[in-house]
């Protein structure tokens, strides 16, 4: 077998590529959850993004329209969720679940005419620089613009939440909607915005799958990645930087597993696949048992409806 430094670079690059949709969707959901809203519809929004992106690319031929169209589709579908949970004050869990079921169904319905069509090539940046630096070359260069955006997003998100005024408002709304409301913040408006933003990021994550990662449309092609993204948010204890690490672990395990198989190491595949879920549960337990820690990291009004009586 070949163990050279470039080989390791290649593996890391594929792990990063598989982490992209998880990072995008998780960072979106993180903002939504930070505002106190639990949207279990990530999988549904992602699949809607996947079909919208692919369909628009096939019909219009424009990658830009397709990418933004997928984000818009995510926004539109999350508007249903926002309207129900914020205006009609419905239960977050049930509404999110309905969104996922509905999204999978409707995407398959739209996608009927798009199966079996090859996707278009998505341009990559800095392809020529790939071989210039050992190890880092394949990691840094030759990826799509969405890839670079995804890896910048956790840092942007972190900055947004910690350093900007709007970020502080989002956190205030999530931590104590009552006092935020008393200070004159429009809680519902903030939450609406955060939900729609989450929809846009999930839509983009879906488009990455159907346009860049495996350029084609297939029913149910998100394959549970939306649920993993939800787990990732918890895994990260609502810290965007940790999402980066978590997404690499979740996305990377499958790839590492295939590499181990190829060099002849046998491990039960199912055990390895189950590992991230078990790790998430353990992380949850560790952060939750300390009530001070959980208060510091979890938005305290998460999943609870807020309605101001007038």
């Amino acid at each position, binding site marked *: *077998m*070949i163990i050279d430094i470039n*080989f390791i670079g*290649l*593996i890391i690059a*594929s792990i990063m590529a*598989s982490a992209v949709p998880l990072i995008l969707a998780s960072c979106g959901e993180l903002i939504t959850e930070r505002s106190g809203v639990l949207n279990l519809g990530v999988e549904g929004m992602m699949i809607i993004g996947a079909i919208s992106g692919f369909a628009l690319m096939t019909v219009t031929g424009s990658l830009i329209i397709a990418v933004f169209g997928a984000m818009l589709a995510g926004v539109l579908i999350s508007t249903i969720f926002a309207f129900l949970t914020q205006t009609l004050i419905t239960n977050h869990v049930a509404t999110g679940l309905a969104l996922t079921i509905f999204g999978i169904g409707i995407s*398959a319905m739209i996608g*009927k005419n*798009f*199966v*079996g069509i*090859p*996707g278009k090539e998505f341009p990559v940046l800095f392809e020529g620089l790939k071989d210039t630096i050992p190890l880092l070359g394949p990691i840094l260069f030759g990826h799509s613009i969405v890839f670079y955006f995804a890896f910048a997003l956790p840092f942007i998100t972190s900055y947004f939440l910690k350093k900007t005024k709007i970020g502080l408002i989002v956190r205030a709304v999530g931590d104590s909607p009552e006092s935020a409301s008393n200070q004159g913040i429009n809680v519902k408006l903030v939450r609406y915005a955060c939900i729609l933003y989450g929809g846009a990021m999930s839509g983009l994550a879906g488009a990455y*799958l159907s346009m860049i*990662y*495996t*350029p*084609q449309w*297939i*029913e149910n*092609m998100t*394959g549970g*990645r939306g649920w993993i993204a939800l787990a990732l948010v918890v895994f990260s204890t609502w810290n965007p930087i940790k999402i980066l690490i978590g997404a690499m672990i979740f996305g990377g395990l*499958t*790839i590492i597993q*295939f*590499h181990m*198989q*190829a*060099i*002849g190491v*046998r491990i039960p*595949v*199912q055990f390895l696949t189950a590992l991230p879920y078990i790790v998430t549960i353990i992380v949850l337990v560790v952060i939750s048992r300390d009530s001070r820690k959980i208060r510091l990291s979890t938005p305290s009004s998460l999943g609870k409806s807020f309605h101001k009586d007038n």
Partner: protein
Amino acid sequence: MHKFLIRSFVSSLVLLFTLTVAAVAKDVKAAFVYIGPTGDHGWTYQHDVGRKAVEAAGFKTTYVEGVPESADAERVLRQLANSGHDVIFTTSFGYMNPTNKVAKEFPNVKFEHATGYKREHPNVSTYAARFYEGRTILGTIAGTMTKSNIIGYVASFPIPEVIRGINSFTLAAQKVNPNIKTKIVWAFTWYDPGKEAEAAKALIDQGADVIAQHTDSTAIVQMAEKAGVYAFGQASDMDKFAPKAVLTSVENNWGPYYVDRVKAVANGTWSQKDTWHGIGDGMVVISDLDSQMPADLRSKVKKLQADLASGKVHSFTGPIYDQKGNLMVAEGKTADDGMLAGMMTYVKGVEGDIPK
């Protein structure tokens, strides 16, 4: 004027009558039950191409796609049997038990189950294709075209069908190039583009420059195209998904068999059979050979194809040894169908163990 109207009325009645008679004579309805979507461009897609051939032959057909192998399969089968279908093709292994169960209740309906081994009632037939013959050709091409001498193979589940494919592929590749190594990765799925692409990428990163697959999606050939290595289409001609990477595809061609069987039902000549057809009968078809292959390789492959079809060459011709060096097939002999059907050991030259 009136006369003209009456005449045309009468003649159209006559025409209608003859049409109806013609229709009655052929009034056999066939149903197809699919595991995946018809647009998977793989397994189900090819079955649906076969169904369209049946339609083209003048029969009515119905299909139900995405039927899970859970308790639902049985209901779908019964509903089809109940609603006037004369022959039902169940196109996935997991339908084996429901097919036999429902067949018992509907002795007048014929059932055709793909890739299974149970024929518990006289109205159940089974059919499968000798895909391993196609893999002999792929192995020959892979062994010739590889430069790194590492060939990647994405496999689905460790069942005889897949093991047989790996063996036949490796035997053929080693025959033209004794130095090759086949690296096998088990994806434990038939159809999951993301996972298949990741498996292919892992093999390419490990130095494989030709990728073979025994899973159904087009993700693998697309990944090969991106990485600039060779690959083979599975089930259908996947050339349009990866024009540079795909050297050829092994196509599943069910049409002739389906038409044949539906006609047999119409003529009343249908009887229970276990069909296992290969290149010779046209159930396994090799797509156009890519021009990147050298001319002498192309002619060699053409000849091999003809010899496999005529039976002059058999994919499993002795001497064949297993991994431990025990003789599996003696010199001058070929493996019989019983051995092929239950093949659960790797031949010598395949690396690693079959996952348990």
